[in-house]
């Protein structure tokens, strides 16, 4: 694992990726700090982070797009398979390298509240709680990015899908206010989601029967539930969109609450997506 980690880090610093990522993050948070803390003279550093979290939409996909897609393209994944290391070690090594890369600009950012506290009344626990949440939020998004990169061998596609997914996630709470909250609307959207899930299963397993089976079972279950108790679906869609939002949970920290459930949520998401990435890489061995 350390071999992969070192190799990845060296690669990032050889190329522009690490610098672009760090520069973008620092620039954006820097602009935020100037706007909020200096110009508007607000003493809450966490607002800057809330503003800065938008930049994840661009920089996370840039950082993660090549991580596995490039291996597939250059056929170096065959080397990884033939080396005496497990796929899990490969993914973990790559992920830790990304985290280290992310921690470097974050270390610079975590210095910011200190000079501000010299000139005003900065409540440091909230600032640092938010920085921690900012780190975990980024770490979860990076895990999502790694998984997306593992699905394709086209870096551009990985970046595009990554941007779309994170952007959608960023706005999902605002969007949830506009979507239908009726039971029928929720059922319709869930149907579409089930079909998408079916397509994904079919793509991953190349097994049509399994995909059809899962789809049919889910649709049947949903229909049954809808006719038995239609009210269960009321307001479900906005609720789901809010629950799935990674950014919404970050805002609890910004509002000055240290939310342990949110941290657990982020960690489970990281574990889930790393697990999926391992499976996605492992799957190539089977077809």
């Amino acid at each position, binding site marked *: 694992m*350390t*071999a*992969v980690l*070192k*190799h990845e880090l*060296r*690669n990032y610093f*050889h*190329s522009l990726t690490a610098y672009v990522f760090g520069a973008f993050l620092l620039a954006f948070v820097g602009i935020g700090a100037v706007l909020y803390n200096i110009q508007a003279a607000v003493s809450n550093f966490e607002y800057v982070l809330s503003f800065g979290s938008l930049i994840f939409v661009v920089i996370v996909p840039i950082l993660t797009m090549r991580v596995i897609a490039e291996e597939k393209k*250059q*056929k*170096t*994944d*065959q*080397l990884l*398979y*033939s*080396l*005496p*290391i*497990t796929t899990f070690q490969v993914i973990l090594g790559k992920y830790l390298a990304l985290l280290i890369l992310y921690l470097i600009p974050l270390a610079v950012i975590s210095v910011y509240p200190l000079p501000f506290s010299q000139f005003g009344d900065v409540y440091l626990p909230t600032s640092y709680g938010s920085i921690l949440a900012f780190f975990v939020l980024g770490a979860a998004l990076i895990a999502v990015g790694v998984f997306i990169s593992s699905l394709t061998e086209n870096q551009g596609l990985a970046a595009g899908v990554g941007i779309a997914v994170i952007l959608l996630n960023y706005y999902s709470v605002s969007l949830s206010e506009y979507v239908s909250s009726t039971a029928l609307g929720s059922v319709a959207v869930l149907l579409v989601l089930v079909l998408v899930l079916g397509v994904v299963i079919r793509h991953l397993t*190349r097994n049509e029967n399994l995909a059809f089976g899962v789809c049919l079972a889910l649709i049947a279950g949903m229909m049954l539930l809808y006719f038995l108790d239609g009210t269960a679906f009321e307001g479900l869609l906005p609720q789901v969109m809010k629950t799935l939002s990674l950014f919404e949970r970050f805002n609890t920290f910004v509002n000055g609450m240290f939310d342990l459930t949110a941290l657990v949520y982020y960690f489970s998401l990281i574990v889930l997506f790393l697990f999926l990435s391992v499976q996605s890489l492992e799957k190539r*061995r*089977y*077809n």
Partner: protein
Amino acid sequence: MITVEHLTKCYGDFMAVDDLSFTIEGGHVYGFLGPNGAGKSTTMNIMTGCLSATKGQVKIEGYDIFQQPEKAKRMIGYLPEQPPLYMNETPLEYLRFVGEAKGLRGARLEEQIRRVVAQTRIEGVRNRCISALSKGYKQRVGIAQALLGNPKVIILDEPTVGLDPIQIIEIRDLIRELGKDHTVIFSSHILSEVQTICEKILIISKGRLIAFDEPENLEKRLLAPGEITLLAEGEEDQVRQILAKVPGIASLSLKREGQGRVSALLRTRQEDIYGLSRALFFAFASHNRPLLEMSLKKANLEEIFLELTEQAPDKTQEREAKRP
């Protein structure tokens, strides 16, 4: 030692490898021969743990590649068909990564890198970017990677494809050299190459093993029924009488050539074609008839290859149609 038992790999309906079994003893150069699409790369990918099998078992030095992949993989160095190189690195950086991934550290790593760099003769380019290297050098870097960690078994998938003649000779020399202290398995669809380097040949066609023998034995296998043509001085009847006494001739045709010479074409079913030619020589000698010419028609490996791969049980057409 490598044992492959009942190995089968299906891609949907297409059987890439069909119930393949063989045992490879240590310390030789083995050639893996077969036409394109015969299942060579698939078999090698399964043997090195890059691909799963639908059925069957592969054991490398006693370690099952599916059950104990890490231990088994430590015994193997593998160069896939397309060398898996990171184009933005130098050979030295690349080898350091592979060495570390194989568990080498510190002085042992440096010593191993120095050794494989010398062995594959890439000293001159070790600090150049891999993307700037010629195909031959890229191939060598790929082989160097396989040699790291001093594995017992080295598997090379078509290592000479796309190289110029001088590079091909150099890679062949390298393979021969490696065969002195490693078990080397390399695949090729070029016969002469396999014939010159390998001590044993596996011929695979349509996913099945159809021959596994030394090159000489493979030749012998198709030597019978053999053909001998000869030219002798004397009358046709005389020659016929002499030949009638020689045992082992299955069919015979004579032809007068003028100037008191007769040519004969004999066929035999005898295993030992040299036995027949010896008998012919003494028969003519004892009758005081000069034998002017005698030639044996031996099957060469090319013909064996063609014959064997064509004989292979034919499910190809339906399979070919289903190939992705």
